[in-house]
Structures are given as C-alpha cells and as structure tokens.
C-alpha cells in the first residue's frame, strides 16, 4: 500500500465532535485548589492546638474561660444556606431575590464576626488571656484568629459583590463568578465546624 493510499485510509479525524469539547471552569478549579491549600494550613494549626491541649505551665485553661458560642455558630452555618439561595436566585436570573439573600448572608457573617470580637474582648479584659499568656492563649487566638481573618476576607468580598449588585453592575451573566465566591464562603463555614468541634467541644 503506498503512502498516499494509507494516508487516505488512516482516520485523520482529530476529534469526533469539536462542539462537545468541554473543560471545567477555571474559577472552580482555582478556588478548589486554594481551598486545598487553605485546608492544609488549617490542619497544621488544628494539630498544634490539639497537641498543646493541657500542656500549659500556667493558667487559665479552656474550661475556665471558654463559653460555647452557640448563637454565633448558628448564624455562621445558616449563612451557608442563605448564600445557597442567593446562588440559586442569580442562576435563574432573579436579581431581587439574589440581593436579599446575599445581604442576609453578609449580615449573618457580620454577626458572627462581632460575636467573636465580643468573646475576645471578654477573654482579654475580664480573663486576662492574651496570645502571650500561655500555650492555650497562643494556640486559641492563632486558630480562631486564622478563621476569623478568613471571615473578614469573605465579608469584604461579599460586601463588594453586594455593592456591585445594588448599583446594578452585577447581573445573571456573572452567576458563575458569584458561585466561585460562594464556594469560598462555604469553605469558611465548613472550617468553622472543625474549629468549633476542636476548640469548644473536644478542647474544653
């Protein structure tokens, strides 16, 4: 068989159906990657917290000063539900509902942050526990503070999105970007489940 003939018989179809060439959204892949990296950072701080439990050479201990922040936790975890409603709304082009649920999410996150602030204020002023007091202080403020800093970043981005939505610069075509941002917020909530369990349930 000559070269020419063979070339004719070899299927040079480069792809069966080019229109079916779908790749995942880079926003999702990147945010998922970031979440993996962040999870590794949180893991190290959680391990340090658990490893140092009860190894303090001076007080106060977690049992003496910590109260379980149930209201805060309910606020933060329920915000995941409301941001899901917001995602659903923008996915279906209902911008009014989106703004409402997005604002509710922001407010719930803000309540959580204020709650953490009040808790820290009591700990520092009333219980005299600072990051330099003992191992518990060091690990507690680092771990809860690391989570709180993620809440702050999340709230800033929620706020920017809210302002863009209220000024009419955001519409249903941006729903994928909004969902990527919501993924980060879900992560912040999921981490709180771990931090809450470790600090307030296991560690107390």
């Amino acid at each position, binding site marked *: 068989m000559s070269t020419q003939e063979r070339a004719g018989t070899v299927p*040079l179809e480069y792809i069966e159906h080019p229109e079916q060439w779908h790749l995942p959204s880079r926003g999702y892949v990147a945010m998922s990657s970031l979440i993996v990296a962040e999870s590794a950072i949180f893991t190290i*701080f959680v391990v*340090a917290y658990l490893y140092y439990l009860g190894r303090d050479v001076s007080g106060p201990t977690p049992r003496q000063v910590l109260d379980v922040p149930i209201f805060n936790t309910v606020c933060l975890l329920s915000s995941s539900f409301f941001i899901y409603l917001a995602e659903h709304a923008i996915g279906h082009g209902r911008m009014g509902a989106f703004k409402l649920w997005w604002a509710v999410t922001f407010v719930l996150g803000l309540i959580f942050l204020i709650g953490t602030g009040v808790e820290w204020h009591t700990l520092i002023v009333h219980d005299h526990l600072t990051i330099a007091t003992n191992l518990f202080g060091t690990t507690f403020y680092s771990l809860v503070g690391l989570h709180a800093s993620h809440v702050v970043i999340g709230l800033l981005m929620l706020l920017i999105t809210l302002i863009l939505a209220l000024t009419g610069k955001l519409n249903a075509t941006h729903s994928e970007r909004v969902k990527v941002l919501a993924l980060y917020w879900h992560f912040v909530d999921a981490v709180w489940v771990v931090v809450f369990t470790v600090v307030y349930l296991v560690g107390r």
Partner: protein
Amino acid sequence: MATPSVPIPNRVEGAIDQTPPQRFAGTYLEKVHDWVVTVDHKKIGIMYICYALLFLLVGGVEALMIRTQLFFPNNHFVSPFVFDRLFTMHGTTMVFLVGMPILFGFGNYLVPLMIGARDMAFPRLNAFSFWISAFAGLMLYFSFIGGNGLAGTGTAPDIAWFAYQPLGERAFSPGHSTDYWALALIANGIGSIGTAINILATVFCMRCKGMTLFRMPLLPWLYAAVSGMVLVAISPLTACQAMLVIDRYLGGHFFDTQAGGSAILWAHFFWIFGHPEVYILVLPAFAFANEIIPVFSRKAIFGYPAMVAATVGIAFISLGVWAHHMFTIGMTSFGNAFFTLSTMLVAIPTGIKVFNWLATIWGGRVRFETPMLFSIGFLFQFVVAGLTGIMLSVSPWNWQLHNSYFVVAHFHYVLVGAIVFMIFAAIYYWYPKMTGRMLDEKLGKWHFWLMLIGFHLTFDVMHVPGVLGMPRQIYTYEADRGWAVWNQIISLGGFIQAIAIAILVYNLVHSYFKGKEAGPDPWDAWTLEWATHSPPPAYNFPVDPVVASRRPLWDMKHPEDPDSAFE
C-alpha cells in the same frame, strides 16, 4: 516555519504561524517597562529562570566559600559566625530562590505552549506570583545589610535551612535575621501557591481541542502533580513560619520550650513540608527527562500510562515519609518501622520511571547532543542517589549516619546530580525556543564534561568523610581525624563545577547574540511548542491548534503514519 517540508493534515495547519516574527521596537526604558508590567507567561517564565540563575551564582559562591573554609583543617578563611550564615543562606537560596523559581519558570513557559493555550489561566495572578517571589528573594538578601545594619550584630540568618526551634526564638536569635528568613519564606510561599493554583487551572481548563488528559504531553502532567503537592506541602511551611512570627513578634509560645512549647512539633511541621519539597523539585526534572529523552532517542516515550501513574504515586507516597528526617529524634519503634517502609515504597514508582526511560532509549537512534548527555548523566546519578536514599531510610543505618556528610552527599546527589543536571538539559533543549538561537554545542560539551567530573569528584567522595564520622555544618575539624584529604578532593571538585557553570554563563550570553539561528523546530521534536516561532509571538498560536495524539507534530510530519491511528 514558513514552508513545512511535509504536507500538513487539514486541522493542524492553524498551529503554524505564517506571519514573520516581529521584534519589539522601542527605547531601552520602554523595553524594561514592557518586562515589568508584562502578564505574558513566556516573559514571566524567562524572568523566573533569569532570577533563579542569578541566585544560582550567589548560592554557588556561598558553597565555594564553605568549601574553601573546609579545605584545610583548622582553617580560618571565614569566622564560625559567617560560616553558619553561609550554609543557612546556601541551603535557603538553593531550595527557595533557585530550585522553585527555575522549575516554575520552565513550567510557566512550557505548560501553556505544550497544551496549545495562549496564556496561563490567570495571567495577572501569574505576574503577582513572580513579583512576590522576587520580593521574597530580595528581602532575604537584604538581611545582609538590613536588620541591625551594616555596623550592627544581626545580619544574615544563621539557623540552618530547617531552623530547628527553639534556636529561632527571640531568646536565642536576637536581632532581625530570623525575621527576614521567616517573612521571606512566607512571601515566597504565597508566590508558590499562586503559581501552583495557576498551573492546575491551566492544565485542567485551557487545553486545546482534542487534547484529552491522556493525550497531554507528560510535562504538563508532572507539573499538575507538582502543583498539587505545592498546595499541600508549602501551606504547612507557611503555617509554621506564621507560628514562628507569632512567637517572635506577639510573644506566643508555639516553640517556646520554657512555656511548654515543643521543639519536636517544629521538626514535624517543617519536614511535612520538607520532604515533599524534594519531590516538588525532582518531579519537574523528571518532566524534562520525559520530553528530552524520547526526542533524542527518536522514539515515543515508553509506558506513558505507567509514567503518569508513577508520578501520581510518588506525589501521594511522598506526603507520608517526612519523619525519616527525624529517626534520631527518638520515635516509637512503630514510627521507625512505618517511616522506613513508606520511604522504601517511593523506590517502586521511581524505579518504574527509570526503567521506562531506559526502555525509551533502548533500540533508539540516540543523538548525543548536550541535552541528551545531561539526561544520561541524570539517569545514572539519580539511580545512585536513590540507592543511598534507600540506605538512609533504614532507621538503624540512619542512626549511624544521621547529620553526617553521608546525608549531605546523598541529598546533593539528588539536588545536583539529578535536578541541576536536568535543569541544564532543559536549558540546552529549550533555549533555542526561548531566544531563537542555539546554544554553542562545543561549549555545551565542555560544560557537560567539566560538570560531570566536578560533580563526581565532589559528591562521590563526600560519602567517605560521612562514613568516617564527619558531621555536617561543622565550621572546621582537627588535622588528626584523617578527613583533610577527602575535603580537599571535595573542594577541588567544587571549583571544577564552578568553571563549568562559568562556561554555561558565557555560553548563555554569547549565544544570545552570536548563536546559530534555531528556527522553530531545531530538534525535530513532537510537542506543540515546536509548532510556533522561536521565540513564540505573544499570542503563541495564531489559531487554536487541534490535536489527535500525544505527538501532534509527529502526525503533522508523518501523515502517512500518524500516532493518532494507534492511540
């Protein structure tokens, strides 16, 4: 490639740019501005590589100073304090300012070209990652003159690259040298994680039509694995540096042993980063070998699926071996056995890789040009490095040789013998693509042979004083220990390597102006980066390419016998 010598199947044609390459016209200042503000993955990649080569020279000078100090027993070439700073900065520089950036540089340059994309997934994040890494390097080196100042006491960090605590705590490390170290590594880590996210998003979301994951060249595959490892390995480093900074600035007690803090926890955290880091550095070297060895053997890579599987296997296993750095810290016998076995397990996927490379060369029409010479050096040396690695993974053997020059010899065999050799191969292989000119082959051969001789003089011999009991990081030694002659041979080899590097630097500069024109495809290679101009235009490909096999350019050059018919 204005007129390709072979007929092009209809759809690959778009990959060939018919427009002539255009040179950037403008004043010198405009050119600098263009490079500083660029978000082009190729320019950022070249900046990464140049930045790394610059620090390679700096770290190399530090190594030469260490070797000069150890040339004679009881030598006083530098003071003990300067010696501590030298080996700390040598290690930190070579890992974070040379190894990581040069590998990210090649990744940045090659991954989008190889998968037929026009840029990385996030070009601006890419520029941010580079500049924050560059800032980290400058900050680390600013410690030489900053901190407590030229006249003050605190200069460069002197706590070794693994910085065992509590020596880095405020009480034992006053001044700001450790702060520079910790903050520089945090900044560098942010850059690394940014690039890793970018590479993952690029590999998964930017592939050209027809390039399924299993038609992707192995280099993007390995870079995806490396990026995944960066996410889970560099993050613990960032976390434990943050803890160190909390200790130093806010009075925390993470590693403050007086207040119950643990020195061992630092060792765990550091090596949870530190051992995967070795694989983060070596996998890109494997990636270069996966591209270079087939092209110079004139055969497709042997065992592509096995290579992918072995890569992913290495990535997973490497996350569970860290405590083999800590056998002498005193672990339970279960711990010792676990980490001995998990470390030995790494030998299986790496062995698969070595046999696949050998099988690729086997029966091929091998062309012994400089990239291939370095690749063969890599293959041989990597096997030896792996064998000493197996020896050190056995905990009783490790107790005997831990922190001796045997360990130094082992990891330099990996870092220099495998990684640096493959980086040189990659430079010779892709320099024509990046600059449009060939590196001088004669100088390249000189570079290779001098490097090979120097390497073996230094690092083969370095095992001996280790077995004789010479500990690492010592400032000097007594004449009656019998280590002097070995150290002199080691230092001699170091100076020969320095000459080899000088030849490379001359070659890089000389060939940029006087080198032979390369053309788009000087090696008759098969992956997409060779389908476009050398250097490629900013948009890479005028039309998005469509591929049907792992070797699209082979299909294009051999339409009568395309890979796509067999895969």
